[in-house]
């Protein structure tokens, strides 16, 4: 990988959780990955492999036991506005209007009102929510709330956008619409994105590259490059290239899931052995 356009570098990352009754669990072990500038990278893996934990470490919300996380060459030491994050749960501030939510980060940094308004308008336009400025979150559908959350994170102009299964709580139709919206947003902004999902098709549709993680303790199992042409839309999902990738990634995750179930004991018999 070319060093000069490197955005995010993670090396030798280990995460250990201590159990309440003593003892500890290694959630992530010796994990390394790289994200280039203006690249859309997804992380997929069996459930419980530590993909969300990984994202929270990049966000600075969790401290790793060891290893380094470098953003633009500087180590991540805590949360900051340069790493915007969109969560799976609805995290709009219910007491602020849509406008107030999108302006939140700018207000923290004491930006003047005209600038805040201008930026909020730009990003609400980008996610197609012009006209909802004065609505409270409780008046919005789940999909609209997540669009505002994306606008809120982007309005801060972070160096990288972290997305933790942002469409995981939405119904299938809304999710598909949101994926297309995110494709368009990415094509317009070319924001560097690190995206966690358990939806293989979503990962392929959106990404330039996909990291497949192993079952716990989480490591990078393999890296899959998505060479499908851009700009993309959902139509790409019917192409043979897409289907081949889906089968490959599916097979990789299935291997891990079976290994994990096998270790838990008894569930794998005879013919199911890997």
């Amino acid at each position: 990988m070319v060093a000069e356009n490197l955005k995010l570098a993670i090396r030798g990352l280990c995460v250990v959780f201590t159990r309440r009754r003593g003892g500890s669990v290694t959630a992530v072990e010796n994990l390394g990955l790289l994200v280039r500038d203006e690249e859309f990278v997804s992380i997929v893996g069996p459930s419980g492999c530590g993909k969300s934990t990984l994202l929270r470490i990049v966000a600075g919300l969790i401290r790793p036991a060891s290893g380094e996380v470098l953003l633009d060459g500087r180590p991540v030491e805590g949360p900051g506005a340069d790493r915007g994050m969109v969560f799976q749960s609805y995290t709009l501030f219910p007491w602020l209007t849509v406008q107030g939510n999108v302006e939140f980060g700018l207000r923290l940094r004491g930006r003047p009102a005209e600038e805040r308004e201008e930026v909020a308008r730009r990003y609400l336009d980008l996610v197609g929510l012009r006209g909802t400025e004065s609505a409270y979150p409780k008046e919005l559908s789940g999909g609209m709330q997540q669009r505002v959350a994306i606008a809120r994170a982007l309005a801060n102009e972070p160096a990288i956008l972290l997305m933790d299964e942002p469409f995981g709580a939405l119904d299938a139709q809304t999710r598909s619409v949101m994926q297309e919206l995110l494709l368009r947003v990415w094509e317009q902004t070319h924001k560097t994105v690190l995206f966690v999902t358990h939806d293989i098709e979503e990962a392929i549709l959106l990404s330039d590259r996909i990291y497949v993680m192993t079952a716990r303790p989480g490591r990078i199992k393999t890296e899959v490059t998505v060479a499908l042409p851009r700009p993309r839309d959902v139509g790409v999902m019917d192409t043979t290239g897409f289907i081949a990738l889906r089968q490959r990634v599916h097979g990789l995750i299935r291997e891990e899931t079976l290994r994990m179930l096998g270790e838990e004991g008894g569930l794998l018999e005879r013919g199911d052995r890997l």
Partner: protein
Amino acid sequence: MNRDRPGLLARLSENLRPHEPISRGAYLAGIGASVAGIFALWAVLTYGGLVAPLFLPSPSDIVRAAIALIADGSLAEHTWASVTVIVTGWALAVLLAVPLGILMGTLKFVEALLEPVVDFVRYLPVSAMIPLLILYIGIGTAQKVAVIFIGTFFQLILLIADVSASVSRDLLDSAYTLGARRADVLGRVLLPATLPGVMDNLRITMGWAWTYLIVAELVAANRGLGYMILDAGRGLFTDRIFVGLFTIGLLGFLFDMTFKRLHRLLLPWSPRI
């Protein structure tokens, strides 16, 4: 039963499906039936001579007693005395319990400091503390306020701690990822996020404060609705006891409505309204 006009039984069963909404008309009919039923039963028992006036005065006896108590100004005086004591004791409890409760639910260390004390004291009957209160602060209004304070403070602090502990972690984390520092997260996110729950619990504990009224006015009171009821009981003026009870019920109802209004007015964004 014919098809076009369902019978009473069918209509009743239509309105008795678990958790299903019913029409406004059916709801109002339920309210009407409840109030009318109680009054009808009351009228039959009293005017029919089935119960002696000593135990249950008739509606007109109570209206007569109420008019007399209103006319000589004593009802207003008693009401004002009680409202003052309750609102003062409750407001002091709120002023202390809300910030402490928010900190207790947010910072594990504050929880460790407060929880043992609160869990111990909140099981002590307020009435059992009266001798100590008299010893410490005498038998004046302060003692009555203290009873209300103790009755609400230790409950409210736990309710508020629960509200602030249940503020979603992701909400705080998203503030951090937007560049918020710890003080911003406390002041700009945690505090507003607790407001709907705080409002709900202010309403609930105001109700509890009223239930401590008799205990508060047990010692050396010469005014207040609790005193009025106790005094009427000594003289077997059952009608005045009922006037006192109705007044308390009505005030409780008004306070509750006010809180619900305020919630809607002050927190229009609240998901609870």
